[in-house]
């Protein structure tokens, strides 16, 4: 049984809200933006068909206000809510609230979100579905003695992780029994303050893993397919910054195996919607289930570029209750795609957020280049939210062409006024390990011992920059000289001001 979706409220901001509004337009659906006070002029408000204020400044006062969002959706007659990623995207209470209010939540059911959002439970589901998992305890570990036995069993180094975790919070690497007690209590306390949930568990620590994930699509009739992998090993602060598809280490056989595992898990969980099953891959190409993201990923465009599918359109179809229009064997792959996230961050200062005014801003374009952006020239990047400005995605017939095009596009990209990760992207595209595909989640530390130094060295000629400053200064002096000369030759300035004063006094 299918339903019609005429209007969608987008409960998000920035590039993903723009992306979804574009998807709505492509589908002939009315898009509704919501916005906080600082976002009144934001691009997502301007591209949407309708826009309503949430009020407030911080996320908690605006994009996280479930009540206001539901109220707005009801008032404007929306049929569905698309949560994007972040904010309320993986909040099962919100998904349930949508359902109670007769609104379609574009994502899996609240029950599935709750199940897979809990790392301990998700791990149990994965194990039952036959997926390889990192050796460790699936239980909530409270006592040091239990932890010690568990760590002994799986062998050091081990990783303590928050059950409700994400983003590296409540996570500790422990190399020997001595550090275990302290690590356990700090991880639990950090998890408690970050997620309101002190539960932690223990896992074997894989030293130089790759992060490889599988995109899945499931409909309401039990059909699940996968769209291949994305390689997301290049991370800073446990957050991805450069992604690509295909992964250099995944061949057809491995893709089929990982894909089948992801599909099995999704079927076991009753997954409906677009989602991502994340894996760690060790140096022997063994893969281990990591977690499920029950939403659209930031990096979904690399899959779109390679498969030719539009994941937002697929989400719409599934939300309308349609059967998947493609079977596994219809999923084609062509060429290679790379994404560089353009963050308002100073990579040289350890990826510190660096927000401000885009005094000049020009996105690259041309063959093989796509930009999913939340900003245009003259905008301000506000300090209150995630500092992601845009995603630069390139496609090439092969990885080499994709890298060349990414270099070109990063070179064309003009951002003046703030520091961004564009400079970091350039550095990576010229890095030997990246070019030959030697990646791990430790890529940044391993390759750039002194990132600031590497960035400075890669940024070309400081001498040319100094010369430019000298020239611009010289040009200014010459112009000031010319103006003052002209003024002197034309008229006595005293006469002018005298006359003006006379006019005023009359």
């Amino acid at each position, binding site marked *: 049984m299918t339903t019609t979706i005429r209007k969608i409220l987008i409960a998000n901001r920035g590039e993903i809200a723009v992306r979804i509004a574009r998807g709505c337009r492509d589908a002939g659906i009315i898009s509704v933006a919501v916005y906080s006070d600082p976002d009144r002029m934001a691009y997502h408000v301007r591209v949407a068909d309708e826009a309503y204020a949430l009020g407030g400044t911080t996320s908690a006062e605006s994009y996280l206000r479930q009540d206001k969002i539901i109220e707005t959706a009801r008032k404007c007659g929306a049929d569905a809510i698309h949560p994007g990623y972040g904010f309320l995207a993986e909040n099962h209470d919100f998904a349930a609230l949508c359902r109670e209010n007769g609104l379609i939540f574009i994502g899996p059911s609240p029950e599935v979100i709750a199940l897979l959002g809990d790392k301990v439970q998700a791990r149990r589901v994965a194990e039952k579905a036959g997926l390889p998992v990192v050796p460790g305890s699936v239980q909530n570990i409270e006592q040091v003695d239990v932890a010690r036995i568990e760590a002994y069993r799986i062998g050091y180094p081990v990783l303590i992780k928050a059950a409700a975790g994400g983003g590296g919070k409540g996570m500790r690497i422990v190399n020997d029994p001595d550090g275990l007690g302290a690590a356990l209590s700090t991880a639990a306390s950090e998890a408690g303050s970050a997620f309101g949930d002190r539960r932690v568990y223990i896992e074997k620590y894989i030293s130089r893993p790759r992060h490889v994930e599988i995109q899945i699509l499931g409909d309401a009739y039990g059909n699940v397919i996968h769209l291949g992998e994305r390689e997301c090993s290049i991370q800073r602060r446990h957050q991805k910054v450069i992604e690509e598809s295909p992964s250099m280490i995944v061949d057809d056989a491995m893709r089929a195996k990982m894909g089948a595992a992801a599909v099995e898990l999704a079927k076991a969980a009753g997954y409906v919607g677009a989602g991502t099953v994340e894996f760690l891959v060790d140096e022997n190409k063994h893969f281990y289930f990591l977690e499920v993201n029950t939403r659209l990923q930031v990096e979904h465009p690399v899959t779109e570029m390679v498969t030719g599918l539009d994941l937002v359109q697929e989400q719409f179809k599934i939300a309308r209750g349609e059967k998947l229009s493609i079977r596994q064997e219809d999923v084609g792959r062509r060429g290679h795609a790379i994404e560089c996230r353009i963050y308002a961050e100073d990579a040289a200062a350890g990826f510190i957020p660096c927000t401000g005014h885009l005094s000049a801003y020009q996105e690259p374009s041309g063959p093989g280049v796509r930009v999913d952006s939340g900003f245009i020239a003259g905008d301000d990047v506000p300090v209150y939210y995630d500092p992601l400005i845009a995603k630069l995605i390139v496609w090439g017939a092969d990885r080499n062409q994709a890298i060349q095009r990414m270099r070109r596009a990063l070179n064309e990209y003009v951002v003046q006024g703030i520091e961004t990760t564009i400079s970091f992207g350039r550095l990576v595209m010229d890095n030997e390990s990246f070019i030959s595909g030697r990646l791990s989640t430790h890529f940044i530390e391993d390759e750039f011992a002194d990132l600031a130094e590497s960035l400075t060295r890669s940024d070309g000629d400081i001498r040319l920059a100094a010369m430019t400053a000298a020239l*611009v200064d010289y040009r200014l002096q010459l112009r000031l000289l010319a103006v003052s000369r002209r003024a002197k030759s034309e008229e006595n300035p005293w006469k002018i001001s005298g006359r003006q004063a006379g006019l005023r006094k009359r």
Partner: protein
Amino acid sequence: MKKVQVSTADRTFAFELWFENDRYFVRGEGEEHVVDLTPLKNNRYSLIVDGRSYETGVEVASDGYIVFTGARSHRFIVEDYEIAQMKKQAGIDDWAREMLLTAPMPGLVLAVNCRPGDTVVKNQPLLVMEAMKMENDIKSPLTGIIRAVAVIPGQNVDKGQTLIEFEPWRNPEKPVPE
């Protein structure tokens, strides 16, 4: 013809400039170039230097120029060469004014890990600030000595507010410990 000194926090360049037949000429650092400098919008400039084409942003700051090459920015002080030499003789250093660490964003100071008198190295974490729900290490922009710490843990700061003052150190008699 004009001779200028262009300096960053840690480097100094000298250029002679002149303008002839609608072209700029620059001599310095052992090279000579013909430059077609054409202003665009938004403080951007198109430069053709001996045939090579560059586009660069140059914004005027209160105390010099910020040059945006590629994806990064550089701060420069440009001054008359003779005056710069005289200043040097007199021990005046304009970069001393620059020796401040300011808050890169509004936020809450969580921890201060340095004290006046400390010698710190470039990129050494000096403070921890919370902003955008994340803890950020604020690192030293230079190698030098701390003169003053202007904030305390628990204090909310605005973007651009001074956090740390450094001793001026770009002094020929007292080389930077790096």
